[in-house]
């Protein structure tokens, strides 16, 4: 048995001291950087919380003991008036449907916009390759503005109602999905596209027949996830702006005592809807991405 595991003669072997020092040096450096990063992080977190605490009206420790005051108040009243709940549920179903419709329409429109934007902004697929940065910036902007801002501005122009919310969510969806879609499209196989190009297909034919079939499962999965997110967004917009179940919730909540049964009813309705959609979309998304 030859001693290969132990390498050549002593003299020819690389200097042990060198490797050892190199490694020890690395360990020292890592420990130092790690330590500095750790201390930095802890310091930022601690001072951040301290600052937030000092800027807050109430302190953290005082508040902690009262954490359940409000929920207790709400729940005890709702419990006392629990007989009203089924009726209140029923009252708010139309508002819930409006909220869901806002989310669905916005997701539909936003997805279509995202499809176009993402193809226009993907290297190798773009209709006008020079315009790629332009379309990317457009998507960045659409993503950056919170929905609420667009919605409030649009309420000023269009008056109340669900349409401003739809537009606001659709714009944001267009930007957010556009980025994800374009990441998927970037990985699409270009061979079919080239094949279609060689027969003289125009751009829309190349995209529709060559790219969309490849990316459809992933895109659909992202769109479902977005729908889930948009249901929340639509409820929140109602809360801050107007329309849908979020608005009902806000009014009941602002009135406060005396309508806490309504608060609980609306909240439960919304919560159950969100959890149900969450579950269903989770299920289909897993199916879409795994099974093809």
């Amino acid at each position, binding site marked *: 048995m030859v001693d290969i595991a132990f390498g050549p003669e002593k003299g020819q072997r690389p200097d042990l001291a060198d490797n050892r020092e190199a490694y020890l040096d690395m360990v020292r450096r890592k420990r130092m950087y790690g330590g500095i990063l750790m201390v930095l992080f802890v310091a*930022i*977190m601690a001072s*951040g*919380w301290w*600052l*937030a*605490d000092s*800027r*807050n*009206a*109430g*302190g*953290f420790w005082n*508040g*902690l003991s*009262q*954490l359940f*005051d*409000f*929920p207790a108040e709400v729940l005890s009243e709702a419990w006392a008036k629990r007989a009203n709940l089924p009726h209140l549920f029923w009252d708010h179903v139309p508002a819930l449907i*409006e909220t869901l*419709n806002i989310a*669905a*329409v916005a997701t*539909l429109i936003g997805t279509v916009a995202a499809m176009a934007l993402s193809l226009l902004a993907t290297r190798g697929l773009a209709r006008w390759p020079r315009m790629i940065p332009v379309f990317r910036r457009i998507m*960045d*902007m659409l*993503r*950056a*503005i*919170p929905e*609420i*801002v667009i919605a*409030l*501005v649009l309420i*000023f*122009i*269009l*008056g109340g*109602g*669900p*349409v401003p919310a*739809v537009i606001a969510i659709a714009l944001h969806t267009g930007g957010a999905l556009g980025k994800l879609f374009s990441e998927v499209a970037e990985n699409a196989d270009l061979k079919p596209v080239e094949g279609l190009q060689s027969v003289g297909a125009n751009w829309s034919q190349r995209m529709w027949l060559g790219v969309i079939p490849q990316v459809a499962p992933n895109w659909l999965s992202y769109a479902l996830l977005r729908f889930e997110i948009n249901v*929340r967004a639509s*409820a*929140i917009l109602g*809360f*801050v702006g107007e329309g849908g179940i979020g608005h009902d919730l806000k009014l009941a*909540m602002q009135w406060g005592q005396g309508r806490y049964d309504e608060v609980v009813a609306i*909240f439960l309705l919304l*919560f159950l809807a*969100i*959890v149900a959609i*969450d579950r269903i979309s989770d299920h289909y998304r897993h199916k879409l991405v795994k099974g093809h």
Partner: protein
Amino acid sequence: MTATAMAPSLAETVTRRFAARRRMAFAIPAAIIAYLVYAAISFDVAGLVNRARFDNAAILLSDFWSHKTHVTRDNRNGKLTVAIEGEAKGTYPEGMLPDWVSVAGGVTTIDLGQGHVVTYDDAGARYVVPGYGTIDIREVDGRPVLTAPEPLPSWINAAENRIAVTTPAGRFNYTRSKVETFRYQAGWELWFFTLDSPFYGKSPGELAGLALWGDRIAADRSNLGYMLSEFWNNRMWRHGDVAWAIFETILMAFLGTMTAALVALPLSFLAARNFMPLGIFRAAARRVFDFIRGVDGLIWTIILSRAFGPGPMTGAIAIAITDTGSFGKMFSEALENIDEKQVEGVRSTGANAVQRARFGVIPQIMPVFLAQVLYYLESNTRSATVIGAIVGGGIGLLLTQAILTQKDWEEVAYYMVLIILMVMLMDSLSGWLRRKLIKGS
């Protein structure tokens, strides 16, 4: 090798398939269109078109990038005020007027440009519109009387107590109590210094000169310091307050996200099948995650408001709670997908559970962990804007309130630009960190 050799049934199958696909190709868009039509009806889009106020849109768009200056004379005491946006903080101090307004004796002359000139005098006011003529208003028995070339164009709106003229050069209003002229100009006026500041109206060159070698304007501090403080405390734009608001928003997002990540990491082990064999605990942990995610940050904000009062900490805690739910779910999914070989290797040396997690698991889920945390940090900057509007802090409060009051659209534009920049900055920062931390090290 002829067409006849082809089985006829094959042609049938294929054509039938194409027909089916064709039906699908129509059915899906038709279903979508039907839904959209239903939605349009239920959203009352038709009514919306009537309700939509495109003049509001025009105001808003022009306000985004322009400002207006009010030149107002109180008809009761004859006092003249020139104020940017008609606000007290934009009022020209005594003895200072924009160069297009001049006062001589009791006569005020306002040059709106392009030949439009408005004059206020003791008798009333006059507006010379090129290509039309002179609109002359005199007060008779305490009531404005209009003389102007007939027929009156539609841009002159004369009522009993009020005469309004709108031209491309500006707007003019005459009522019993006052006469006002509005001139629109591009730009965000007073963005650097307000009218009462000694630095107002200076060119960048002059300012640089003052800052570097000019004599001290205020004896007790340097010109540069004075200048910065005048800018920072600009009463019209409040750059200092706005900067703080932006910082507060980022602070909420950062504290919320990081805290959620630190809390969710250990908890997610409870919800992962391969680490929590007890089904009840696992299900309980999952339901808890689902619950706090489902409730949504906004509701948490309201619940927490009672306990902690308004302020950034409330917002940060609300974000932390919601995201604990999201992270818990994602991390536990990541945990279920880990490579067991590494854990087994560490385990075979006699490592205990904590060590196995530390060396067998954490290195594996670190990339997912970092990617998600950074992604959420970015998206929470946006959420913090909205949450801020509820808890009374951050740029969100400034923005939503500015929109709700529907007047300072240039401020809205300013805040919006800042928010977009802030989110984009966080986006690229988190992207940069993601690349650095996940690829490197």
